[in-house]
């Protein structure tokens, strides 16, 4: 077979790389405006109404829902991919750690996330002004707020109006009532001064349009929703965008390089098709990168040309730098008062019904920036791991008949212990803000490692600092107080200085951002305040890369808002014939 580059004859207005939150939103807005758009997606097509794992029983998985390398969050999880992909390695500077989660599929990682949809607050855009660390964003809450409103209306999010300055209220659907363990948490945490309020999740507790059904409380958002009752980019953005007839989606297409002309302007994207490993080219007047923070940085660094010898949009040498993920630490245990509890269906929505926003003043603490707390527990569907370690439980508490036994055992009495102790678990995890630093970065591997497509891979260099470690220590202390106050017993996760207080490895929280940060100074930033590359006016980045700082919020809602804002700006440029 002759090898030749196959050029698609169609000239698109916009080519978008990636179909997750950022790419999906750009595709939706740009096609609504009448622009001809091509989305290229590295993985296969996915539609939760057809690719169904929802409402299946544990025995329908031969491994009873345990994770595999392909579905690390469990056999029923919607998201394909993980921290390791076959044939797509990444490397590390020795002694450093970063775990890179990739989901190659339509909708990307929006198929997996917890639907936690928090707005950044006014302080979150101006970190440096508050504590002198990192950098301020070139925009503030007032710039993004109208777009958060639009995202709320378009996609739907439930929550409650609380009037907390740095936790801006949205246009909320009504929240579900707390579950039993959440009432215990609320009572004890509130007593310690830790606020507990309804969670803010992009799940439809009320129907918002005729394309999507309302939530029916199966607690399985992570499996993808057959009635589109929650947000994923595939079902809520890409699918409606296809109805405009202005969108082509090319799946199984791994972007290799952004193409530029002699003047340095972007002319399109080349990609390697997964099916035949041939190179194809898409021509477009504007290129929008939304491949995920690290993947977009990789693409830019791999797009070297005479006009862009240091990689595209990288005259500042900032591409790949300031990489930062959320901090995370967790612990959990049991609520003995729930032993032998009455059975009823408490599945609820997919995730927590209450959470704790950051509540303290860092001026009185030994670390900068805050964290929020996520909670879980109760009578969830049993899966692989059910009943593990019973010997640590049934030797510590009397059984249903008041009999104190030795831990472990067998037989009818053990069988009843599993029933008796079920549904009493409770857990909590912090998700905090790390300070973005130039010294935490990804770069093209200098030793020449390539992936199965022949594309040079990333090498990571990431280390936590004392700030993040002290924040994790504070999480641990808070969690232990809450557990103690409600009479719970900690059975896992308690961590001390020797493990950095359970601080998860960078990348594990899957909130990595910052690699193409925005700013007004082209020497210190990659894109401007409209996500437009300083060095290449018809190139935009709309994933988490442009984040200057992460805040203690999940990034998705801000990615959606900024992608919408950037898309409006792109439409304006087309109107003014600037592209």
């Amino acid at each position, binding site marked *: 077979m002759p090898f030749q580059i196959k050029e698609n004859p169609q000239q698109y207005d916009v080519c978008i790389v990636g179909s997750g939150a950022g790419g999906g939103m750009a595709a939706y807005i740009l096609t609504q405006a009448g622009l001809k758009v091509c989305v290229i997606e590295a993985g296969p097509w996915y539609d939760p109404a057809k690719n169904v794992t929802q409402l299946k029983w544990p025995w329908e998985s031969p491994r009873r829902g*345990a994770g595999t390398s392909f579905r690390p969050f469990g056999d029923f999880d919607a998201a394909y991919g993980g921290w390791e992909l076959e044939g797509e390695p990444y490397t590390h500077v020795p002694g450093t750690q970063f775990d890179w989660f990739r989901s190659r599929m339509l909708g990307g990682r929006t198929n997996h996330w917890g639907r936690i949809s928090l707005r950044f607050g006014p302080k979150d855009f101006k970190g440096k002004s508050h504590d002198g660390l990192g950098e301020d964003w070139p925009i503030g809450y007032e710039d993004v707020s109208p777009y958060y409103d639009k995202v709320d209306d378009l996609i739907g999010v439930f929550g409650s109006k609380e009037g907390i300055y740095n936790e801006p209220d949205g246009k909320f659907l009504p929240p579900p009532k707390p579950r039993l363990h959440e009432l215990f948490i609320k009572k004890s945490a509130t007593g310690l001064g830790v606020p507990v309020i309804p969670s803010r999740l992009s799940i439809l*507790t009320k129907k918002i349009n005729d*394309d999507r*059904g309302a939530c029916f409380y199966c607690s399985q958002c992570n499996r993808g929703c057959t009635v589109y009752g929650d947000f994923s980019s595939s079902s809520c953005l*890409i699918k409606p965008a*296809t109805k405009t007839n202005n969108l082509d989606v090319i799946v199984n297409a791994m972007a290799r390089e952004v193409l530029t002309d002699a003047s340095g302007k972007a002319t399109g994207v080349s990609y390697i098709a997964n099916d035949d490993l041939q190179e194809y080219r898409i021509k477009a007047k504007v290129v929008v990168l939304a491949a995920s923070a690290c993947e977009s940085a990789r693409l830019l660094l791999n797009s070297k040309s005479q006009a862009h010898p240091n990689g595209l949009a990288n005259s500042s040498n900032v591409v790949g730098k300031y990489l930062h993920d959320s901090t995370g630490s967790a612990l959990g245990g049991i609520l003995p*008062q729930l032993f032998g509890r*009455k*059975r009823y269906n408490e599945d609820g929505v997919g995730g927590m019904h209450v959470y704790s926003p950051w509540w303290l003043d860092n001026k009185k603490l030994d670390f900068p920036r805050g964290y929020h707390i996520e909670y879980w527990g109760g009578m969830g569907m049993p899966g692989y791991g059910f009943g593990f370690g019973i010997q640590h439980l049934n030797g510590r508490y009397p059984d249903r008949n008041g009999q104190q036994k030795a831990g472990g055992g067998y037989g009818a009495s053990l069988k009843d212990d599993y029933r008796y102790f079920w549904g009493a678990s409770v857990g909590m995890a912090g998700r905090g803000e790390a300070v973005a630093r130039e010294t935490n970065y990804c770069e093209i591997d200098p030793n020449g490692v390539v992936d199965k497509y022949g594309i040079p891979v990333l090498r990571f260099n990431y280390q936590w600092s004392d700030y993040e470690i002290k924040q994790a220590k504070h999480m641990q202390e808070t969690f232990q107080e809450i557990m103690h106050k409600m009479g719970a017993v900690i059975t896992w996760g308690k961590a001390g200085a020797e493990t950095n207080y359970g601080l998860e490895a960078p990348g594990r929280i899957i909130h990595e951002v910052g690699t193409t940060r925005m700013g007004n100074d082209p020497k210190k930033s990659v894109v401007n305040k409209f996500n437009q590359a300083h060095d290449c006016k018809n190139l935009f980045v709309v994933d988490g890369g442009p984040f200057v700082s992460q805040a203690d919020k999940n990034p998705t809602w801000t990615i959606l808002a900024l992608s919408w804002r950037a898309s409006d700006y792109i439409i304006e440029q087309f109107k003014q014939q600037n592209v």
Partner: protein
Amino acid sequence: MKRRDSLKALALTAISSGTLLQSCEPKQTAAPSSDAKAGISSIDRHPFELARDQKLLTEKFFDDHEMNTIKVLIDIIIPKDEASGSATDAGVHDFIEFIVKDMPRHQLPLRGGLKWLDNQCLKNHNNVFINCSSSQQLALVDAIAYPEKAAPEMKQGVAFFNLLRDLTATGFFTSEIGLKDLGYAGNKPNRWDGVPQDVLEQYGLSYDERTLKESVKWDDEG
């Protein structure tokens, strides 16, 4: 789509996937690479996932003697009682056969543990475990089933039994028999309207007025 229609559609998809919202078929330049109905699994799988599961299902790890020993042990761990059947009734032995092939880290601890068990029985009773009397079997299980009481020379048996007990419990309570026994009441379309009143009273809890006022309520349209 109205809520009850969406529930109806959902019920359909539960038995035959791919019936919902077919009118919104998007433009695609490549076919989806998975087919929920192909092969052994009722859950949506990629072809290579199906192929791997199929391969694991046709391989045999435990020999007949090992499997017979496992069957005796798991029914000692979870026997039939007035509420439900035993571990073998629930097919836990098949689950264990599959899971050691899926998670090879369990292979040596289980195979070696089974051999350790037979070694003990041969030494003390000149018989392998399954040929020992029921009282001899239970005496050995008693010696390894309680980690804190077990003699130091029984440590290997304790480690083996802990693992087998874990896998038995998971296999049983994730089976249809076990899930029913446990009383798990979810995995079905419903409306979550809070903790039942009698349960709230049992724990001396209540929803505050604001929560009752602001939380989701339902009318005819959902």
